[in-house]
């Protein structure tokens, strides 16, 4: 009887030690997660605190006269005349009407600096949409200049940033504020316009469309190719030195820095095949090269995870190999493959380096409508804005990052959801 007792004592003694190390390990784990979470929280608060302002923008209310002579056109239906019209004259005249005492060149210039240089064109669009307004006058909320926007927001927050403001401008803003003729509105331009040199007119629509087109092409190419390659390698290819070699190289490819793919794309698609620069076709091809290894690897893992008993069952029933794959392996592996594809797409969405190499970094105002229109993508747009000197681009950059991050979060969440949803037990 004494023998088992000593054993028990030994176990109890060691149990203390084991529990202690388990506790320590648990705390290490919690600490690690805490650090990770803290990093995410800091990143998100920083981005949101910088970027939230960009979703609202300053508008001024002015009384405008749609004066035919002032604009200098006769026929609103003639596009050539529309182009030649002096549209900016309308808001300028409206400003003079609002502040009749202003005189002198310098003062006038800073007066005109209150509104966006694109305000006249907005009025043109409004006039073309309602031709009856010609000759009439009305009160219109017009986009303010970006410096005014920055100042007004900071002034509302109680720490005015007036570095780029004249004293007169500060007075005028205060006056407009008292009259209720200046306000912040939802910045719909951010989502409906392309890039612009003027921060207040710049939007991410062009970049979002560019990203969308590029990703559609990437998905259309890389998913079928990747899945086919994975199925072939996993189910049909003989296991020999060649397939080992291919496997090693696919893994290598997955680890190649993305900028190399950009160089490759530049050399092959642009210099050799003469596809134009800056277009989603080349972007999609380059990102296909980049995501292909990811998709192949995850698809192979998904295929491998299909239990061999299912394969044996199918083959034992007299299914051909092709039928076994199509009827049994593929449906079971599909959730894993889709998850891999979504993760690959998320990677591709966030990629900028290879796209810089193939010219998708150009300044493009027009919103791309097709795969062969010059375009840029969201991360590159972020890069471009982050690089711009205008202060108003700081919040725009953060806002674009927020949009990019929300796309990524949506994609990754849907990957998790899809996996949970489609997963079948056996």
């Amino acid at each position, binding site marked *: 009887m004494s023998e088992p007792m000593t054993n028990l004592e030994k176990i109890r003694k060691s149990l203390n030690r084991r529990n202690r190390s388990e506790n320590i390990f648990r705390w290490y784990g919690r600490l690690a997660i805490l650090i990770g979470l803290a990093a995410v929280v800091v990143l998100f608060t920083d981005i949101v605190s910088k970027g939230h302002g960009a979703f609202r923008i300053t508008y001024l209310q002015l009384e405008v006269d749609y004066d035919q002579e002032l604009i200098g056109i006769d026929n609103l239906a003639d596009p050539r005349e529309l182009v030649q019209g002096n549209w900016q004259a309308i808001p300028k005249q409206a400003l003079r009407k609002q502040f009749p005492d202003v005189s002198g060149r310098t003062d006038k210039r800073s007066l005109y600096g209150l509104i966006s240089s694109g305000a006249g064109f907005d009025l043109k669009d409004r006039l073309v949409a309602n031709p009856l307004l010609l000759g009439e006058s009305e009160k219109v909320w017009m986009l303010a200049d970006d410096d005014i926007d920055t100042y007004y927001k900071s002034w509302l927050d109680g720490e005015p940033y007036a570095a780029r403001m004249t004293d007169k401008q500060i007075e005028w803003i205060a006056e407009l504020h008292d009259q209720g003729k200046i306000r912040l509105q939802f910045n719909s331009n951010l989502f409906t316009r392309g890039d612009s040199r003027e921060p207040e007119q710049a939007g991410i629509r062009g970049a979002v469309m560019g990203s969308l087109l590029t990703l559609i092409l990437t998905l259309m190419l890389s998913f079928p190719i990747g899945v086919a390659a994975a199925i072939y390698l996993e189910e049909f290819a003989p296991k020999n030195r060649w397939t080992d070699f291919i496997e090693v190289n696919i893994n290598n490819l997955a680890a190649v820095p993305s900028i190399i793919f950009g160089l490759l794309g530049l050399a092959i698609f642009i210099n050799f095949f003469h596809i134009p620069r800056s277009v989603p076709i080349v972007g999609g091809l380059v990102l296909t090269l980049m995501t292909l290894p990811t998709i192949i690897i995850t698809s192979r893992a998904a295929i491998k995870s299909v239990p061999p008993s299912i394969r044996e069952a199918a083959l*034992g*029933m*007299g299914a051909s190999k092709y039928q076994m794959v199509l009827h049994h392996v593929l449906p079971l592996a599909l959730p894993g493959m889709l998850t891999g594809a979504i993760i690959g797409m998320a990677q591709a969405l966030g990629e900028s380096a290879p796209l810089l190499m193939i010219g998708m970094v150009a300044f493009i105002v027009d919103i791309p409508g097709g795969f062969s229109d010059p375009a840029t993508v969201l991360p590159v747009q972020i890069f471009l804005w982050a690089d711009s000197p205008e202060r108003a681009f700081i919040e725009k950059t953060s806002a674009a990052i927020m949009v990019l991050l929300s796309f990524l979060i949506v994609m990754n969440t849907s990957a998790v959801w899809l996996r949970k949803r489609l997963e079948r037990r*056996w």
Partner: protein
Amino acid sequence: MSTKNLARAAAKANLKVEGKQNLDVADDQVTVGQSFTDAPKMTIRNVNVFYDDKQAIHNVNVDIAKNEVIAMIGPSGCGKSTFLRSLNRMNDTVESCRVEGEICMDGEDLYAPKLDVVELRARVGMVFQKPNPFPKSIYDNVAYGPKIHGLADSRVDLDEIVENSLRKASLWDEVKERLHQSGTGLSGGQQQRLCIARAIAVSPEVILMDEPCSALDPIATAKIEELIEELSENFTIAIVTHSMQQAARVSHRTAYFHLGRLIEVNPTEQVFTLPEHELTEAYITGRFG
């Protein structure tokens, strides 16, 4: 191989050797008993099976008669599954596996280059040790074989095949209300019967069963044994089992394997009452295995 080596091999195969029983197998070991029949469904001649360089089956010669149930018994690792799987060429799926010799069904060489394994496996069905229904509905599980082989001309036909197969597998009454629920939601025993129904849905000529009851409770086992008896009226059945009682209950002849060699084949009653070979005797009296 010397006697010493074989003794070592026997030890390696994890045999509990008791007393002075001589468990060695001679190189020129000939199967004792009644290996051959007058009306064979399958004839197996000089079959050797290798995994890479390792030989798992040594020179097996045996006939499987039409409509008989032949049981294969033997210690773990002796090559029963390997042998069974070579009968419908499931070993083709194992990269390293190589089969030598001649296996014929109705006089037709199963390893002939022009033979299509898809056709072969439709004629020689298999039930695996672990129930492995497809993660599809019960109906689709049974209908799968007839569908891919184009055996049903219409939906009504298919329904009939499914119902008949499930009835034969004595599963119909338990599942007729939920044919469109997943086959993986059934109990282990039901799943195994589903796999049997799936195998007989294509009306194979031979059914191979690899320890079909190893995961089942006595009641489910009894059901499947009953089923095997019924099936033997129409089918030829080769069954691997670890349970000697089961072999005694269901089979007409019993084959005893030992270290990759077929030691003895005899009518079942004889194997269990008057084994011809001392190894068989040692095994069935529980001295090892």
